């Protein structure tokens, strides 16, 4: 299925979905390809200059509007750098293999799994984590809606769910129930609070459009 078809078919394609994730892999490949400093002549077998563990690369990451310049190993994921190097632990590690969505962040406004993105790939992109939705000590609309609707239990998938909904609403301000379900389908909640998450997404849409959360 081509990506053109995807974008035509579904307005909610910018939420993290299984298919959206594949598109994200495509974006990643482009980013790596462009960064020829790392993988020169990657197409040719034998000629590739392979970066080894222990070799450091300088990257500048734009996270929540602040630039972080640091040395990373090329194999480090964006999630590892966010959590363990920068100290933004709002993004959670649930599987580190692109299954659960607990690590979802926005990259150039689009929800992506930070565990499936290398830190070096993320250079030059605008990254927003759950901490970046805060307005000082005030909660953002989606966060507030999750709190009001009790759209979580243990709270560990919650930052990822919130980022998935944030991304969805940025591309589709008034999603239908089906669009909400699809937009959060890449985010697992083992506590099973999905039915409350749907309500929270709907409430967040209303809060964002200034109509308040009451239906």
């Amino acid at each position, binding site marked *: 299925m081509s990506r053109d078809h995807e974008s035509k078919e579904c307005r909610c394609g910018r939420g993290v979905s299984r298919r959206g994730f594949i598109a994200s892999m495509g974006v990643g490949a482009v980013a790596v390809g462009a960064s020829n400093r790392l993988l020169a002549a990657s197409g040719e077998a034998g000629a590739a200059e392979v970066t080894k563990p222990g070799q450091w690369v300088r990257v500048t990451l734009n996270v929540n509007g602040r630039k972080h310049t640091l040395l990373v190993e090329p194999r480090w994921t964006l999630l590892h750098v966010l959590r363990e190097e920068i100290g933004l*632990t709002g993004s959670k590690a649930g*599987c580190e*293999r692109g299954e659960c969505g607990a690590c979802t962040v926005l990259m150039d406004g689009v929800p992506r799994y930070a565990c499936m993105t290398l830190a070096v790939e993320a250079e030059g992109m605008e990254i927003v984590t759950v901490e970046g939705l805060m307005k000082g000590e005030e909660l953002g609309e989606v966060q507030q809606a999750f709190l009001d609707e009790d759209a979580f239990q*243990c709270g560990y998938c919650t930052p990822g769910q919130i980022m998935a909904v944030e991304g969805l609403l940025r591309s589709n301000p008034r999603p239908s129930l089906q669009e*909400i379900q699809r937009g959060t389908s890449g985010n*697992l909640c083992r506590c099973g609070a999905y039915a409350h998450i749907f309500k929270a997404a709907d409430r967040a849409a209303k809060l964002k459009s200034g109509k308040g959360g009451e239906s």
Partner: protein
Amino acid sequence: MSEERKGLYAVRGEALPPTPAPGSPPEPWKETRVVGAKMPRVDGYARVSGSAVYPSDVSLPGMLYGAVLRCPHPHAKVLRVDASRALGMPGVHAVLTGDHPEARRDWTYSQWRPPKEAGSRLFDPVCRFEGEPVAAVAAETPYEAWDAVRAIGVEYEVLPFVSDELEALKPGAPAVHEGGNLVQTENYSRGDVDEGLAQADVVLEETYRTESELHTPMELHGCVASWEGDRLTLWESTQGVYVVQKEVADVLRIPLSKVRVVGHYMGGGFGSKLEAGKYTVLAALLAYKAARPVKLLLTREETYLAAGNRPPANMTLKAGVKKDGTLAALDFSCVCTGGAYPAGGTALVDWLVRDLYACPNVRTEATDVYVNAGPARPFRAPGHPQGAWALEQMMDALAHAIGMDPVELRLRNIPAFSQAREGTPPYTTNGFKECLEEGAKAFGWKEALRRAAEFNRHHTHAKRGAGMAGCSWFVGGGWPPATVILKLYADGTANLNMGASDIGTGTKSVMAMVVAEELGVKTEMVQIENADTGTTQYASASGGSKTVPTEAPTVRAAAIHVKQQLLDMAAADLQVERSDLTFRGDRVASVSDPSKSVRVQDISGLKKARVVVGVGTRGPNPADKAIVPFGAQFCEVEVSTRTGEVRILRFLGAHDSGRVMNRLTYDNQVVGGITMGIGLATTEMRVLDRHRTGKLVNRNWHDYKLPTSMDVPAEITSLPVEIPDDEANTTGAKGLGEPVTIPTAPAVANAVYNAVGLRMTRTPINPLQLSRKLFENRKEG
């Protein structure tokens, strides 16, 4: 911020619940102001803002990362471990194997009922399941730790294995332990089953199977371990800090006062985090060896292998019923496995058969066997969803066989007392009848059946059906011991100090509401510190639906203790008898002379001492009574007869869990329990390659599928059947978290039967299984 200080911390004017004299029990709450309301969580801000620090978020100066090398075979002897190359690798600070004396430690897999053979070693020379630890490493980054793990060479003698619990009992099956593969057989009987069956008008027999489920909470299992000299601090993702403290102290053979376990937040457990793991001890040992803090979190794959599961159950049920709907006999047997160690493989699987319905003649036999697979851990309502899968489908089949409505059949067999408990005690409250009746009414049960039949007349490839099932839960009343401390600050706000973990059920919020109810202080003015063995009071692990009924009365007792002291102090200030005083909002006033009153903050005793400290302890449960939550769930499904897909259209859970403490988190439990039950019914299944390798085939969330947002209905209705249980405890609450997931799967199966006329006796009802059955049915038909 300043507005908050100007405003009231407490309610004004309203009468607070009466304060009993010291030593006297409090009266049950009559009308509540706060308890029962829909209140967003007191820690919700921390959880949605990303500022809550979970154990996996903890980062300490100089911290290293741990990783564990695990046996890739289901059964093997470890002959030699060569870690020499790993030790010299960049960033590596410590390596542990069975060759190191400090790692030679005993280990017990089951903390619940450890029988004699339960013993294992931290690094056991015989690995009896895939995923047993063989070595562990600490390095400066997780990447370097995994590089080092991969560089450790291990020589194994691979042994024959058995993965299938039925095969395990056959002669010649590979022995998991030297004594053979039988853990134990438990028998129960009452009345005369054969006589009962002979007197029945209809006798049915069926075999059922539920697959093994894996807990997979979102936060990985593990901890951060840090030593200061001989003092160990662990930040562990756990349901019970005091349990972890004891286990770690026992294994390391150090005093309790040398182990502090902290778990302020935790990302889900469902029973799999009631205990410490080998990983906890490994983290502590690595940290000691490296003299640096160590963060050791399992990978997702490791949690599939070595962090517990719900045992698979093979069940046979023979049941007899009379034409009038009276149950005549139940004859049940099951073979289950808790894996390679005794871990409650059959625990409580037969409980509902024994106790849910009135039946004079019952016989059960439960056989627990060893296989070469990861040891089980308690999984939300241990045993019950398995047993309910058999019993509740059987009740449905019996109802059809005698031409009676399934709700009606259940109503005719509601027991007046607990038949399976010693002394057959009465229940403190039993709302099963109300759950069935009010649930059926709110769901529109008869109408749903009629509508489905009508729909099916007009559709060939889509068929609809409605189904229902009932349940109770073994222990819903909580029990002692528990202690909490409640501090009233000089400005009239409060601090609650309690050892219990809030595992996502909203424990902290409910406790803040109890304080608010009793003291008149607003819930947001209650600061809570919890789940820290160093600084908070004793609580058993949060699990088994016992946290609210255990802790809430304890918190209420502490609040009453505060009020009693305030009354004493106010009596001195106002020069009136203590018995003449009562609380009105934030004031203490004389009943006989209302002009005599004092604001709580102005009571001189409080002003002088700066705080008033109340201590609450959990009293005993009523003697000779059973405290049991009940429930009934109803659902509507649509089956595609072309693809075998089941779409769940809506669900309703009617639950009697005593008083509703927080309607918002209450409803969330119902939604979550049903969602998890949908997983058991339709998607979840551990697959072991039982013929060739014995390895776990689906060790990730792609291959082991949890319900996603696409698999659950948006319409899940929670209908509390609220019968405050004043005999159970002083807050009237019973447990909720387990019962809400017990009847879900059989309700789905019964709805599928109603839709297509096929009994799905094995979980999960996925398209593969259902389309095969539909195909076979067409061939025969």
